């Protein structure tokens, strides 16, 4: 019983690890800023699942999981949501001002162009 619970926790931990990998890949590779924001959310979901696996492994004292990492995940989800809200608002404003939803040139090049 305990062994199966532990292995299930580990499975979800490994799932979280892969999700974090997928999320990071999107964040690095996709030009679309909206997709990157989704990528951040995937990365976050993976991280939280790792926390969840840790919490489940720490089941003791009559609790089904360690409440401390669980509470941290709740805090984390809320913070991640406000990050999403802020970045979406910035993206929409950028779109409203420029009509684009991706970064243009890398800033190193943009900064070197001469002023008029």
């Amino acid at each position, binding site marked *: 019983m305990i062994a199966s619970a532990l292995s299930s926790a580990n499975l979800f931990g490994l799932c979280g690890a892969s999700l*974090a990998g997928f999320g990071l890949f999107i964040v*690095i*590779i996709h030009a679309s800023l909206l997709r990157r924001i989704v990528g951040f959310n995937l990365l976050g979901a993976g991280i939280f699942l790792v926390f969840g696996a840790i919490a489940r492994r720490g089941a003791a004292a009559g609790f089904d999981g360690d409440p*401390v990492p669980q509470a941290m995940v709740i805090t984390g989800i809320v913070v991640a949501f406000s990050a999403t809200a802020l970045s979406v608002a910035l993206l929409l404003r950028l779109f409203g001002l420029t009509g684009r939803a991706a970064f243009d040139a890398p800033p190193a090049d943009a900064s070197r162009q001469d002023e008029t």
Partner: protein
Amino acid sequence: MTLGLDLTLIAGLLALALHVVIVRDDRNAVVAFVAFGLLLGLAWVRLYSVDVALTEAAIGGGVTGVLLLRTEALIRPASAAPTASRRSGGALAAIACVLLAGGLAIAVLSFPNPAPTLAPEAAEALGRTGLGNPVTAVLLAYRSLDTLLEKIVLIIALVGLWSLAPETLWGGAPELHPTAIPEPLVYLARVLPPFGVLIAVYEFWVGADAPGGTFQAGTILAAMYLLVLKAGLRPAPEVKRTALRVLVAGGPALFLAVGFLGFLMADGFLSFPDGAAKPLIVGIEAALTLSIAGILSLLVAGPPSKAPAP
């Protein structure tokens, strides 16, 4: 049997994540992400973290999904002409991600057995708070400073979000509803909110002793309010209104006030007097629930898009 369920769940999560990575269309990716959020809620149930499952389903799948879908609809003209995703760094990025996932996997598998845990300490200290739900105890007693500051994070994010409005619109009202409001939406917005409020009150009330609590209740309230706004039953409020700002600041302010009360009545900042812990915590939670509902719905509503009345 349960192993099969877990594996199915994990396979679904990974497949949806992969879909988000490779699909060309942004809308498709966002829809897949919403489905992903709901499956993730189930995963949390399987991890016996019902509190987190409720939060994840409400925020991760629900409100974030609304936000992303709306954004996708608004910026679709830009994404219609797809910008070439960077091919050059692809291999390098893939290596970085495999390294991250692999390192994490090794770390997860190398955790000591039996796992170190604070559950016994949390259980032992639970008596001092009078609460029954250990997660609520962690959030509002043991690590209340984290929770308090996280509310400030939300408020700062909101202030920053409002500041993104053009100069003339600052302090005005956001606008959510489309020009033509579909009939069924209005019907839903009339029927659902009473249930929603009831469920939110229930979640908040049981949160002290059973899974549930301020975040979950606040998110449901926020969702109901957003539904009402979206159906155009009520105009969105101007964000400079004092009543609205008092609502937003009220929860954290009460939390702070009780925190300072600890200097006078108990062992110091954020400590509760003996025996009064539970009523104080429930009081804080009530105010926080309203504040969270306000903050979350305003974060989804976005920066003001109508000029304030003079």
